[in-house]
């Protein structure tokens, strides 16, 4: 995990069996625990003992941890106070309303699951063309049924102790996608999960989707996730995704986070890759006032590989945070990370990347590159690469660069007739190119390019340029 020492925000009564708010708990923590207590008899699957017990244990873990402050190492650069100070209610039952999908997303050409304020909406989804060997179910339905096969998967990778947000999710999750894939690469299985925050109420709401994805031996899946939202009322999207990849399976996971600009977004992905398997992810971040993308990838079997790439684009006073932990637990595994940040206005980015190599993980090949482009003197990035290596025969490298747009390049482009904003756009796109190239699917890459262009139009408008 990213940090070994996590302390509760305010000293709390630790270890009590009851999750009832203790007097010394931070009011925000107490409020969430009260929400759990109030909902315990209504959340999906509450009739099944194991479901209730899972939620109670999560509540205890949440009470013990509280929300992290900046004194906690893993959260040193991200101040959660704006999120903690808001009171989020659970969403009202979603009313029928059209979902606004961002341009270029709707036609990503894959069967689609739509979640509105965290709840699965079959009426908005399109699963008619689901290929053989891909099973898609709603977490809510499986919880209600108390399915045993769910019991083995839910929380298997995402321990509530991992972070306050994982605990919060485990305590309050109502719904999510449960995906099981047996189809081989030839089947080219594709899926699109859309999360839309509607801010339909005039008060802040929070939702905590939990997605469970499992690829059986030799299976392959391309999953595109887009998180979008509308309105000015803040909401919290606190998603946890558990990805389990059996030997020789291969998953491409492309994510676009284009939440409403007043939203809070916390995503935690746990991916475990079996021998010879590959987890290939790309995350583009263009939205939310505060975004934290945490990815924990564990290379659990020999010759497994993880590629974590992404770009976070900041503007206004937004705060974007990417935190990754790659654990090499087996020999002959490879991990590659390329993350880019482009920051306009007074935006701020964080990149924390840790490569943890176990003693058994000989012949590890680990690479991490983090590059930032600052478009304004008021933009800022904090970067913290970390290598923790216990094996003696490994190849691990990391690098970080921070720079501005090159004046010579800008002049060259302008001297050929490109107006300044267009010239900057060309150079920003070029800066992102080698990270985006990792997305081999052309339709998805085009969708990401379009999201980048949308972000740039907004950043330019804000700068009055």
């Amino acid at each position, binding site marked *: 995990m990213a940090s070994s020492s996590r302390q509760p925000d305010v000293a709390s009564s630790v270890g009590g069996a009851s999750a009832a708010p203790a007097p010394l708990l931070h009011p925000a923590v107490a409020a969430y625990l009260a929400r759990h207590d109030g909902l315990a008899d209504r959340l999906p699957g509450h009739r099944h003992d194991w479901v209730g017990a899972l939620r109670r244990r999560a509540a205890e873990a949440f009470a013990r941890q509280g929300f992290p402050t900046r004194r906690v190492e893993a959260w040193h650069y991200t101040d959660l106070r704006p999120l903690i100070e808001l009171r989020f209610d659970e969403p009202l039952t979603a009313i029928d309303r059209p979902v606004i999908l961002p341009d270029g997303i709707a036609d990503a050409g894959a069967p689609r699951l739509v979640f509105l304020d965290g709840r699965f909406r079959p009426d908005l989804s399109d699963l008619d063309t689901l290929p053989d060997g891909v099973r898609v179910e709603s977490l809510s339905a499986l919880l209600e049924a108390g399915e045993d096969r769910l019991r083995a998967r839910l929380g298997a990778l995402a321990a509530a102790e991992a972070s306050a947000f994982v605990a919060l999710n485990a305590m309050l999750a109502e719904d999510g996608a449960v995906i099981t894939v047996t189809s081989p690469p030839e089947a080219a299985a594709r899926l699109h999960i859309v999360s839309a925050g509607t801010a339909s109420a005039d008060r802040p709401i929070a939702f905590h989707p939990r997605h469970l994805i499992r690829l059986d031996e030799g299976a392959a899946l391309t999953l595109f996730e887009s998180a979008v939202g509308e309105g000015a009322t803040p909401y919290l999207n606190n998603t946890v995704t558990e990805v389990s990849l059996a030997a020789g399976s291969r998953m491409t996971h492309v994510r676009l986070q284009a939440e409403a600009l007043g939203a809070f977004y916390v995503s935690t992905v746990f991916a475990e890759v079996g021998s010879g398997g590959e987890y290939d992810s790309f995350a583009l971040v263009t939205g939310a006032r505060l975004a934290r993308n945490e990815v924990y990838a564990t290379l659990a079997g020999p010759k497994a590989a993880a590629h974590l790439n992404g770009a976070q684009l900041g503007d206004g006073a937004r705060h974007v945070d990417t935190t990754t932990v790659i654990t090499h637990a087996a020999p002959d595994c490879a991990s590659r990370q390329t993350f880019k940040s482009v920051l306009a206005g007074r935006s701020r980015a964080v990149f924390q990347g840790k490569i943890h190599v176990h003693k058994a993980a000989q012949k590890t090949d680990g690479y991490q590159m983090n590059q930032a482009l600052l478009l304004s003197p008021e933009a800022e990035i904090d970067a913290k690469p970390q290598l923790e290596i216990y094996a003696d025969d490994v190849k691990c490298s990391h690098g970080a660069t921070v720079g501005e747009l090159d004046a010579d390049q800008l*002049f060259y482009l*302008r001297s050929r*007739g*490109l107006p300044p904003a267009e010239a900057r756009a060309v150079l920003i796109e070029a800066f992102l190119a080698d990270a985006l190239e990792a997305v081999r699917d052309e339709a998805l890459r085009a969708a990401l390019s379009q999201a980048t262009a949308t972000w740039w139009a907004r950043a330019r408008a804000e700068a009055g340029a």
Partner: protein
Amino acid sequence: MSAMLKIEGLEASVEGKAVLKGIDLAVPAGEVHAIMGPNGSGKSTLGYVLAGREGYEVTGGSVTFRGEDLLAMEPEDRAAAGLFLAFQYPVELPGVGNANFLRQALNALRRKRGEPELDAMQFLKLVRGKMKALGMTEEMLKRFVNVGFSGGEKKRNEILQMAVLEPAFCILDETDSGLDIDALKIVADGVNALRAPERGMLVITHYQRLLTYIVPDRVHVLLGGRIVRSGGPELALELEEKGYGELQQAA
């Protein structure tokens, strides 16, 4: 005949140091003028000042281009007005495809002129013919702009841009530097092909060599930030023979 480019008393400084100290020069449409001079005489500064590069401060004089105040324009507006600078050191643009860059530049200019933009197919058709004449392979279109290009390839790429953008006025800054004789001939052929009654050119060079292939109408000698002598093409040959020494002593 009124000059296409008219420079009067132009003074400019770089980092507070005066480099151009009063330049007078008039290039009519249809003519090729050469600016010759030793290193440090202000040749490249003149090119950059005309193209509008930041950090080159104009401290006096004026430049009129096709009747307009050139110095008041932004670099992209100078390009739209028809001015083109072929760089001595073409800038590398990693991540920017050469074809896309060229098409975007062409379309930006066409937009400013109120002409319809070219789509990828129309553009490719246009650029193919021009590349062939410059001995360039189509593979160079797929590479990033100037990245991994040899010195000769970079210069040819500049001439290709010129051929595609068809500017009214071309400034070639030391386009001969770093070229072997074969590449020099190809580049010169490319430039000569653009010579036209309605187009003016300013060829900046240190050596006479290039002027054997691009025969200028007028030659000007730049020394210490001033034009100290002007003449016909024979002046270039004279300089080749005698060097700049004599003029430097006189200046």
